[in-house]
Structure formats: structure tokens, C-alpha cells
């Protein structure tokens, strides 16, 4: 267990140290989401009717949830690259704790996710977003965001170990996650969608987490969303972490 923790920290450190050296990834974390916020607020914002809220208040929790779900992309790309370059073979030939490579990766995502949440939040505050909540609720919202992002990192970890190249991880991940985030309450009110999509949006964990964030940060009615968001996150981790670790054990370099 001590080895698991120390090996995980070594791998997490490795992934954080290399981050500033990949400027393209840093751009993806910072500039791109800010661009989306500005586009949505100023291009679509006027056309989307969000009863009870300014669009910027409505959007910020939604777009932060979308963004944090994509935070795990780095894990998929990184693992796929490590596999192709033979680094996974090296790690697997070392006497290190087996889950550490994945645990370290996903832990590093929590740090980068925190960074990108802060960037988005600051952008939001500058263009008019405001909290209607207690400090405790704001912090609980942060916790839910990071946990949900962490859960998605494990999904992406499995994806990264299964696909044949970082490019494939990129397009598959995008195809799988992008529609999920859009068919939810993240960008538009669900009741504006056709009924089949409404049905899907209502059970979509994204809707649940976005609703939870609106409840925690804006004081919207919570319903079951807050505890639902935590349960969904925990479920995703419980399913995907063991799957990813078992895949890692059998992972073969494609060299």
C-alpha cells in the first residue's frame, strides 16, 4: 500500500512536470474553454431562453461540467502514447505497484482539472457570472466537479489503453463524450428539446451533475441531483477503475 501511494505520486509528478513542456496541451486546458464560454455567451446567449437565469449564470456550471469531463482526455492521449512508445512496457517491467501508472495519471488530471475550473470560473466572473450560494455550497460544488472529472479520467484511461493510437483515442473520446454533454441540461433547458432527447437528457449523468452544480452554486432546486451526482461519480469509478487496471495488466506495447 505504501508502494502504491509513493509510485502513484511519482507517476503523477511525471505527468505534471511534462505538462508545461507540451504547450499545445496547455492551450487546450486554458484558451479553448475560455473561447467556448465567450462564443456561447455572446453568440448563442441572446437566442437561448433560460427562464429565471441570465444565460451566463445558466451556462457557466454547464460548460464547466462539460470541460471537466473532457479533462480526462489527457489521460487517454497520454496512455495511448506511452503504450506506443514502449513506456508502458518499461513500467510493467519495474517492481512497481500495478495500478500506480493509472492512478498517477488520473491523479494528475485532478490537478489540471482544478486549473481549468479556475480559469473558466474567473472568465465567468469577469463576464458577469455570480454565485448565489454559501461558501460551503460553493466548495461542495468544487468537490463534485473534481470527483466527476476524476471518474471520467478512468473512462478515458480505459479508452487510452484500448485504442491503437492517440489519434484514435482523440476521435473516439470526442464521439463518445461530446453528444453526451450536449444532450443534457448543460447548454439549453432540457424542456426545449424533442421528447425523445428529453428522455435521454433526464437520465444523462451530465444533466444530473449540471443540475447539481446549478443547485449548489445558483440556489436552483436540487431535487435528487446533488447526491445523484456524487453517486454517479462513485459508480463510474467503481466500474471503470477496475476495468482499466485489468486492461493495463494485460496491456501489450504495440511496438
Amino acid at each position, binding site marked *: 500500500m505504501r508502494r502504491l501511494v509513493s*509510485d502513484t505520486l511519482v507517476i503523477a509528478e511525471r505527468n505534471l512536470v511534462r505538462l508545461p513542456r507540451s504547450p499545445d496541451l496547455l492551450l487546450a486546458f486554458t484558451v479553448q474553454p475560455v473561447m467556448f464560454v465567450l462564443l456561447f455567451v455572446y453568440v448563442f446567449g441572446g437566442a437561448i431562453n433560460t427562464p429565471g437565469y441570465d444565460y451566463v449564470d445558466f451556462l457557466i456550471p454547464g460548460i464547466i461540467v462539460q470541460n471537466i469531463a473532457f479533462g480526462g482526455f489527457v489521460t487517454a492521449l497520454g496512455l495511448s502514447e506511452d503504450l506506443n*512508445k*514502449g*513506456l508502458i*512496457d518499461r513500467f510493467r517491467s519495474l*517492481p512497481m505497484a500495478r495500478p500506480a501508472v493509472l492512478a498517477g495519471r488520473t491523479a494528475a488530471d485532478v490537478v489540471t482539472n482544478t486549473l481549468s475550473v479556475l480559469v473558466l470560473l474567473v472568465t465567468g466572473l469577469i463576464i458577469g457570472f455570480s454565485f448565489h450560494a454559501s461558501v460551503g455550497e460553493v466548495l461542495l460544488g468544487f468537490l463534485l466537479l473534481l470527483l466527476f472529472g476524476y471518474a471520467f479520467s478512468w473512462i478515458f484511461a480505459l479508452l487510452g489503453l484500448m485504442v491503437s493510437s492517440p489519434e484514435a483515442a482523440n476521435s473516439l473520446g470526442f464521439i463518445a463524450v461530446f453528444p453526451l454533454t450536449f444532450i443534457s441540461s448543460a447548454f439549453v433547458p432540457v424542456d426545449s428539446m424533442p421528447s425523445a432527447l428529453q428522455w435521454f437528457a433526464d437520465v444523462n449523468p451530465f444533466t444530473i451533475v449540471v443540475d447539481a452544480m446549478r443547485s449548489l452554486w445558483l440556489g436552483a432546486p436540487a431535487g435528487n441531483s446533488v447526491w445523484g451526482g456524487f453517486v454517479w461519480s462513485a459508480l463510474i469509478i467503481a466500474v471503470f477503475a477496475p476495468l482499466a487496471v485489468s486492461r493495463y495488466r494485460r496491456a501489450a506495447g504495440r*511496438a
Partner: protein
Amino acid sequence: MPSRAEETVLERTEPRSVAAGEAAISARGLVKSFGDVRAVDGVDLEVRAGTVLGLLGPNGAGKTTTVRMLTTLLKPDAGEMRVAGLDAVKDAAKLRERIGLAGQYAAVDENLTGAENLTMVGRLYGMSRAQAKQRAAELLARFSLTEAAKRPARGYSGGMRRRLDLAAALVARPPVLFLDEPTTGLDPRSRLSLWETIEGLVADGTTVLLTTQYLDEADRLADKIAVIDHGRVIAEGTSDELKDRVGGERLEVTLDDPEQAETAVDALAPLTDERPVVEAGVVKLTVRERRGAIVDAVERLKAAGVGVDDLGLRRPTLDDVFLTLTGHAAEDGADEETGESR
């Protein structure tokens, strides 16, 4: 390259878990299939401690799969393996502390510096940060990477990457080292320098199993060579033994006076089973016994009064060996499999 004295200082105190002369690596009946393809089809290997075994074969012959099984990366479908005194399947976790693996594709993190790469590996072996840094510095010096230590590895040349990869494999001073095509794709100078490094490690007592598709590499580094093709070891022995299996050596005599060819052929006939042939003033024959062949030939020619301009034994190369054993040339096989040129 640092001096040998320096290497000795670094390596002298290293524990050896296998006594000299014992088998440091042994495999019996290894089998591994991927779907319908039997990549490894009953491989037996034995490497005595402190020696180098060259696993020679074209791409797709099963070399890498064999190494992956011996290094615990892959479980065999059948067979037994003992490495450094441990069962490679049952004691896999413990074995990983005793082996080093340097791969065909230099497995270094390009976004980390040379020093960070080695420090990371050291810490994953359970060293403290300070120990790992110290060991990284030693290895960087030994592999002439000190100057590049603080640069990200993405800017390294192919040769530097291989050295860094090999250094990473040596972090824990493993008594048994696996090198999977250590010089594939390297330029001749880097190749030579890597060969010298490997020879240095062996001189210090490390057991090495190296795979290669280069015959000259096996010839130079390996104490014993196992020729592998289609997942099976088809021949094993020293380089000389393998060459002997292909047939004796060729004696070639260039005459002063081509007119004397018939006399020379008669004089040399007792050395060979077939009648010597004459091509453009050169008498050629396959000698029955390599030892003493030159002296014998010179004496016979002198007695017959034949003037000799040049005389030499041409040994069969490992290329000849491979061609004879497998029916195809080593390098041809490689090109067929990968479809790429080197």
C-alpha cells in the same frame, strides 16, 4: 565512453544473485499464440551466468515475444522459465527487481529530461529521491549524457536515446539484462559505442540476452547464438559451431602463374572431398578440416613447385548460416515482415 576503471568502481559492489556458471536464464518448451498465430512454438533456451546469448532471427520470428515472456510482460501459454533464480511466472513481482529491459523502441519519456527519466525509474524501484538522483547522475556520467542531462529527451539523437534507455534498464544494477534489438536503426558509430558499452557490462559479470537481426552483432557480442525462425530455435551454438555446421571453410589460392593451375589442383586435392575448382587463376576448395589447412596447403604447393601470389581461408559468415538453416536470408526475411527499409 568513460574509462573501464570508472565502470568497475560503479559496479564492483553489486550483488549477484546467480553464481557464475549456473544458468541465469533457462526456458523449456515456451509457447505463446496470438489468435491462430503461434508466435513462439516451443522455445528452449539456456544462458549461463555472465555470458551473452544472442537470439538471432528475422522480424516476426518470435524473438520479442520470447523476451516479453522472460521479462514478465507476457504470460506463456505453456512452458517453464527461470530467470535469475526465480520462476518468471510465479515469482514475477520479485523477478522484476532483478532484471533490466531495454527495448527495441527506446522507452524514454520525451518530455522529461534525461536526469528526470532516470530519477523516475529509480524511484519506481523504491529508491528515495536522493538515492535515485545520485544513481541517475552516475549513469548519466557513465553513458556520456551528463551534458544533455537537463534537456528534454525529445531533443536527443537516436544514439543518445538508446543510451538513456539502456541506462534506465541499469538503474537497479540488474544481474540479468534483456536487450531487444538494442541497435536497430542506429548509425554505425552509435552502434559501435553501444556494443562497447554492452561488452563492458558483460565484463562486469552481467548476464545478457540480446535479440538481433544483425548477424555481425550476434557474431561480435554473443558467446552463444540461438537462431530462431517461425517461433522455434532451429540451431544453437557458438558462432564458430554454427559456421562449422554450414560446412567447412573456403580456401582460395591466387597463383603467380595461371598455367600452373592443374598442378595446383592436383597438389591440393587431398585437402578436400570435392575436386578444387579454378576460376580466373584462383583455385578454390572447401577444406575438410580448418585447423592446419593453410600450412598444409602451403607445404603441398611448395613441394609441387607452384608459385603463390595470395592464399587465404574465407570463413562462412553468419549470413551463410542463416541462409542454409532457414532457406532465406536474415535481412530478406526482415524486410518481408516489416515492409520497410532501414
